[in-house]
């Protein structure tokens, strides 16, 4: 069977599964549509959260980021997992006890302020929309690469699948497809990693292989790699190049941004009890850690494989020649057809600058003749390790699962903000449950259409906006939620002033470095030479959060304390007892 047929079969089978779940998990009430009827088992919810959270970026790009960034990129590993500790300890159980449907709803009720709710809605929609663009383009790319259809066709197919289970089933349909998507993506990520770890270190567990000896040299894998990259003039893999201040603030920003992302928070509204929300955050991190403990191993091993491919006789000896790449075999007769295959996609580019017929892969930018896209480190892994065709097909299905599951979670957060916070909350509070359910379905349909359009016509700044999504979540949403739970003194004026201050300062700082509204060349500073000390715009969310906290405390202190019923509300969300009553409203 040829590779194309295999890809089609495996991807087709997973899609049939998702559609089957869509038909089985239809939503009949708003509680089912917004919160899956609050009947999701905490382990199941943990798995769904894993798929919800791990996007195309985690699945496809992260290992490549680490492979070329080394130690500095540890911020991603710690930041994107450490946020779950904050979620479990500071947010999830109390928001579950509150027992409503959306994040802006909590902010609006706790700060008895429709303005606060509106600010939260704006942050939520901006953060989620910018985030969803990347997922949709990821779906298009995965389709076009593995199934030989155009980007647009791939995007339409992906959108149609999400439409089926998200519009029919809402949170309920999304939850159970995410569980299935998690299983697909973790198998797809782990299998190639296990084989590569076995080949390089003899250890079947990649996370352990990373710190084992390289079978070829008998030296530790990481010191072998460090020796090669420094000899070739690349930046060190093991030592720190970033400033300590920036690395620290970047990690904080990713952590509190993760904890403040609405599409992750609402997943914890679906479990039956407050105690389940706590343990479910733990299970989510278990399932996320399975990938995140493997990713740094994939990174180091893929980088080592890449260097070894281009230096078949060792560094300092003759490099791979153009003729060998063309023939698909190196001087030792090793199969290297993957180089040519991926050169065709443009993700791997080589140019024989000095005309010697060989490809030099070195740190010096002038002399370097090979450019490698981050994404190859995962996508080409099965071919580099000479794994069978079905593993390649599985990686295609896994990449699609990662992108689709995150897209669906984001679209759910957007559509419930529109139907529940805007339509029911602000425009027509007397709307019947049946009409609200219809409004929720229509909002979901519109959100999918908008996301598909943006996926087809991604704004030029799409890649930059991830900083914006995390910045907004970190600087405005996380502090507001935390203060709403842990302080009885923060009032409506304080919360609104704090959120707006954190938001504005962060957005302005990002625009100053990335251009106003991301328009090129309107920036006054660059991340290489930032405005404040060595703080890059991607790391500024933590500073924005600090400003939010400070402004909220000062303004609240100068104005009237919250009414008694609000203080009682805070008392009640702090104890688990009584959540059942709120469940069945």
């Amino acid at each position, binding site marked *: 069977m040829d590779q194309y047929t295999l890809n089609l079969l495996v991807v087709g089978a997973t899609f049939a599964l998702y559609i089957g779940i869509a038909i089985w998990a239809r939503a009949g009430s708003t509680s089912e549509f917004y919160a899956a009827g609050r009947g999701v088992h905490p382990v199941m919810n943990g798995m769904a959260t894993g798929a919800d959270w791990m996007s195309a970026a985690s699945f496809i790009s992260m290992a490549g980021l*680490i492979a070329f960034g080394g*130690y500095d990129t*540890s911020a991603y*590993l*710690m930041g994107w*997992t*450490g946020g*779950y*500790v904050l979620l*479990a*300890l*500071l947010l999830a*159980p109390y928001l579950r006890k509150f027992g409503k449907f959306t994040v802006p709803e909590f902010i609006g009720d706790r700060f008895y302020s429709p303005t606060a709710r509106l600010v939260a809605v704006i942050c939520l929609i901006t953060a989620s929309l910018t985030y969803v663009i990347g997922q949709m383009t990821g779906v298009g790319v995965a389709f076009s690469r593995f199934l030989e259809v155009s980007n647009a066709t791939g995007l339409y197919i992906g959108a149609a699948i999400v439409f089926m289970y998200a519009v029919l089933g809402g949170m309920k349909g999304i939850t159970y497809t995410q569980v299935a998507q998690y299983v697909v993506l973790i198998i797809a990520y782990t299998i190639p990693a296990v084989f590569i770890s076995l080949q390089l270190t003899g250890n079947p567990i990649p*996370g352990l292989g*990373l*710190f*084992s000896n390289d079978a070829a040299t008998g*030296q*530790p*894998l*990481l*010191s*072998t790699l*460090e020796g090669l990259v420094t000899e070739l003039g690349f930046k060190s893999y*093991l030592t*720190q190049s970033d400033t*300590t201040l920036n*690395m*620290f603030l970047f*990690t*904080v920003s990713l952590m509190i941004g993760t904890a403040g992302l609405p599409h992750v928070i609402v997943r914890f509204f679906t479990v039956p*009890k*407050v*105690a389940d929300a*706590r*343990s479910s*955050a*733990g299970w989510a*991190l*278990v399932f996320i*850690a399975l990938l*995140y*403990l493997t990713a*740094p191993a994939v990174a180091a091993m893929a980088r080592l494989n890449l260097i070894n491919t281009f230096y078949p006789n060792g560094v300092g000896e003759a490099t791979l020649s153009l003729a060998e790449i063309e023939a698909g075999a190196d001087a030792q007769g090793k199969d290297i057809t993957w180089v040519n295959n991926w050169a065709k996609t443009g993700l791997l580019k080589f140019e024989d600058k000095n005309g010697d017929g060989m490809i030099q892969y070195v740190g010096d930018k002038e002399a370097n003749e090979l450019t490698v896209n981050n994404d190859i480190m995962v996508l080409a892994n099965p071919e580099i390790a000479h794994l069978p065709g079905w593993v390649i097909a599985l990686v295609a299905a896994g990449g699609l699962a990662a992108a689709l599951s995150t897209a669906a979670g984001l679209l759910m957060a957007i559509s419930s903000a529109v139907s529940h916070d805007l339509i029911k909350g602000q425009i027509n509070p007397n709307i019947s449950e049946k009409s609200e359910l219809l409004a929720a379905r229509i909002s979901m349909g519109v959100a999918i259409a908008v996301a598909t359009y943006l996926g087809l016509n991604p704004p030029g700044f799409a890649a930059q906006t991830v900083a914006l999504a995390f910045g907004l979540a970190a600087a405005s949403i996380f502090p507001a939620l935390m203060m709403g739970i842990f302080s009885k003194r923060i009032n409506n004026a304080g919360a609104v002033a704090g959120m707006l201050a954190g938001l504005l300062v962060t957005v302005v700082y990002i625009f100053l470095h990335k251009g106003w509204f991301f328009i090129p060349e309107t920036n006054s500073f660059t991340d290489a030479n930032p405005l404040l000390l060595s703080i890059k715009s991607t790391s500024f969310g933590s500073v924005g959060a600090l400003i939010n906290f400070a402004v909220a405390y000062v303004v609240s202190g100068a104005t009237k304390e919250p009414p008694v019923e609000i203080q009682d509300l805070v*008392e*009640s969300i*702090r*104890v*688990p*007892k*009584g*959540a*059942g009553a709120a469940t069945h409203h």
Partner: protein
Amino acid sequence: MADKSSSNAYWAANIRLIRILLVVWALVSFGFGILLRPMLSGIAVGGTDLGFWFAQQGSILVFLVLIFVYAARMNKLDREHGVEE
């Protein structure tokens, strides 16, 4: 809801637990993984040092333990103060 003083004691115990766990959370990631890494550079782990291990793997493993410890301790606390569901 339980009476006011018991519920205050419950909340105080919860805050104490959160504080302890967040100190560990910060110590393994920001501490061992970043700020204190130079001090740990003498401890070798698989071709690199302990700080690198904490930054890329160790902190994640500790995070996992922290959440499950919190969940278990809070279940106990809920029962002791009669506020469980």
